C-alpha cells in the first residue's frame, strides 16, 4: 500500500505502461513496413514472364568455368533453361513445371526427373542448388519481413530486412537483406538454415535500368559450406513480359 502511495513510483509505472503500449503499437507498424518493402521488391523484380541470356562463371577450387545459358520463365511455376556452352553442356535443358524438375541430356537422349535429395545438389558445380533454381515464388508468399534498421553497404544507405519463413517448404528459414530503397533491390542477402547457420550469401551489383525497372545484372552466389570462390551470374540480356509460347514449357520441347 505504501508503494501505491509513492508518487514518483506511480509516475514510473505509468511511464512503463505507456512505453509498452507504444511498443505494442509500433511492432505491427514495423512489420507492416517490412512487408510493404518486400512487396515493393517483389513488384520490381518479378514479372509475368522473363527471357534471360546469362553467363555463369563458377570459381571452383581448382579452376574457373564459364557456362552460358538462355532461360524462359512464365510466372512462378514454369521455366526452361537451355545451356549453350561449353560443348560438354551444350544442348542440356532443364524444365521446371510447378514442383517438378526435368533434365534433358542430348548425349543420352534421356529426360530425367530430379527429385528428393538431388534438389539440394549443386547445379553444374556452381554455388546454386536445383532448389534455388526451382523456387521462383514471390518473397511475400514465403516470408514475413521486419525492418531491423539502417546500415551502410558499399557506400549506400540500406534498410536491413529480416525475413522469417511463413511456409513450411521454404528452402531457407531466414534471410537477412540489405535493401537499396532507391532501386528497391537487395544488394546483399544472407540465407540461413533453421539452426541459424549461414548457408549462402548473395551479392547483387551492376544495377541497370531496363524496361522501366531497375535490375541487378550481376549476382554473386557463395555457398558458405563449400570451398571455392563463389559463382558469378551475369545477365547478358533480359526481356520482361514477352509472350512465350506454351509448348516451350513441355517435356516434348526438351528433345527439340
Amino acid at each position: 500500500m505504501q508503494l501505491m502511495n509513492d508518487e514518483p513510483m506511480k509516475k514510473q509505472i505509468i511511464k512503463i505502461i505507456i512505453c509498452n503500449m507504444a511498443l505494442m503499437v509500433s511492432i505491427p507498424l514495423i512489420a507492416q513496413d517490412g512487408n510493404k518493402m518486400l512487396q515493393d521488391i517483389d513488384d520490381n523484380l518479378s514479372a509475368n514472364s522473363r527471357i534471360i541470356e546469362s553467363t555463369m562463371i563458377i570459381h571452383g577450387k581448382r579452376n574457373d568455368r564459364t557456362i552460358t545459358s538462355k532461360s524462359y520463365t512464365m510466372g512462378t511455376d514454369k521455366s526452361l533453361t537451355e545451356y549453350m556452352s561449353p560443348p560438354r553442356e551444350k544442348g542440356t535443358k532443364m524444365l521446371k513445371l510447378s514442383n517438378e524438375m526435368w533434365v534433358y541430356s542430348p548425349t543420352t537422349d534421356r529426360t530425367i526427373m530430379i527429385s528428393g535429395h538431388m534438389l539440394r545438389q549443386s547445379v553444374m558445380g556452381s554455388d546454386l542448388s536445383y532448389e534455388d533454381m526451382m523456387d521462383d515464388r514471390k518473397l511475400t508468399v514465403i516470408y514475413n519481413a521486419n525492418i531491423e534498421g539502417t546500415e551502410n553497404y558499399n557506400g549506400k544507405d540500406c534498410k536491413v530486412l529480416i525475413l522469417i519463413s511463413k511456409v513450411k517448404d521454404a528452402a531457407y528459414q531466414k534471410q537477412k537483406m540489405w535493401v537499396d530503397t532507391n532501386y528497391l533491390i537487395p544488394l546483399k542477402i544472407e540465407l540461413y538454415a533453421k539452426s541459424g547457420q549461414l548457408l549462402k550469401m548473395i551479392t547483387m551489383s551492376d544495377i541497370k535500368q531496363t524496361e522501366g525497372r531497375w535490375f541487378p545484372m550481376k549476382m554473386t552466389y557463395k555457398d558458405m559450406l563449400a570451398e571455392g570462390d563463389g559463382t558469378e551470374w551475369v545477365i547478358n540480356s533480359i526481356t520482361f513480359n514477352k509472350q512465350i509460347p506454351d509448348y516451350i514449357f513441355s517435356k516434348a520441347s526438351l528433345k527439340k
Partner: protein
Amino acid sequence: MFDFIYKGIIRDKKRSLLPIIVVTIGVFVVVFSDGIIGGMINNMISMTANFQTGHVKVMTRAYAKQENEKPIDLSILNAGELINQLKKDYPIVDWTPRIMFGGLLDIPDQKGETKAQGPVSGISVDFLTTGSNELKRLGIKKAIIDGTPINRPGQILVSVDFAEKYNVKPGDIVTFFGSTMYGSMTFSNFTIAGIVRFGNSMLDRGAIMIDISDARLLLDMDNAAAEIVGFLPEGKYNNEKAEEIKKSFNDKWTNNKDEYAPIMTQLMDQEMMSATLGYAKRMSLIMIVLLIIALAIVLWNAGILGGIRRYNEFGIRLAMGEEKKHIFNSLMIESLIIGIIGSILGTTLGFMACLILSRHGIDYSAVMRNVSLMMDPVIRTTITPRMLYSGTIPGIISILVGTALAGQAIYKRNTAMLFKELD
C-alpha cells in the same frame, strides 16, 4: 616316479579319462576359435584391401583429408605418369587406378523418361586392360549371380538389392546421372552386363561398377584417378613392407607443399581397421583367460572327485611314510601328463576342423545381410603355427591350476586318523 605315474594314468582310466576329455574339448575350442577369428580378420583385411584401401594407396593430400566423402574434384590429375613412376620405384607392387563416385541411376520407361531412379555409389576399376588383376582380385566372377562380368566399354554391373528393387536385369539400358570432376552435369547410358552380390549390405544396396575408361569419360577425368591402389605380391598384406613403401614414397614428397601433391597411406592407417584388429586381439585374450578359468574350475571339481575316489590310496601312501609334498608333486606331474595328452588331442582335432573349414568355409550370408562391414560372407579359417601352442598352454595351465586347488586336500589329511579311516 614318472613311469609309476604314467602306468597309473594308462591303467586306471577312471583317473584320467574325464580330465583328458575336458582338456581336449577346451583346447579344441581355443584352437578352433583361433582359426575362426584369424579367418575373420584375414577376410576383413582382404575385403577391405581389395575394395577400399589396397595394401597401400596414393591420393592427393586434399583428397586424403576428406577421403570418406570421396571428393573426385580433388583427384590426381596426371595419374598415368604417377603410376609409371610408382611401377618403376616399387616394381613388386601391383599398382592400379580407381575412381569412386556417386550419383543417380535412372531407369527409363518406353518414352525414355524416368520410370524409377535410385542413388548409387559407383566403383570404377580397370576391368578391360590386358593383364589387369582387378576382376580376379575383386572376385567379380564368383559374385555375379546373373549375366557376365564387364567385357566391353559401356557396360555396368548393378548390385543385387538395387536390381531387385528397381526390377532391372542384364541387357537393360540404364542412365547414370551425376556430376563430373568439375561439377558439370553428366549423363551416360550403360547396358547392364551382370547383377552382383557383393556379400556386404552397404554395397548390395546400391553399388554399381563400371570400367575406369568409362568413368574417365563420364566424369571428365581424362588421365585422372581418385586413388591409385597398390597390392603386395600374391595379394598378401605385410604390414612392415607396406609401412616401408609408404615411408619411402612420402619422404620424396615431404618438401612439396602443394595440397594436390600425392600422399601414400597403408591399410593399417585406416582408423576402423586398426581399431577392429585391436578389438579382435583383445577378444582372443579375454576368451583364453575365461577358458582357463572355466577349465580350471571344472578340473578342480574333477580333481576333488578323483581325490575322493583315491582317498584310500593317498591314506595308504601317507601311512607308508610318503611325504604330503611328494604326493602333491606326483599329482601335479600326473596332471601335466594328462594336460599334454589332452592338449595334443585337442590341438589335433582343432587343427583338423580348421583345415576342413579353410577349404570349404562357413557361409554366414544369411546372418550378415544387414552387416555393413567389408567381409566375405563365406568365412574360412586360417592355419597358423600359433595354433600349436595357442590351445596347449591354456590347456596345461588350467589342469595344473585345477589339480593344485584340489590337491590342497592332501595337506589337510591328519595321519593320526588314518587307520581309523582305513577301518
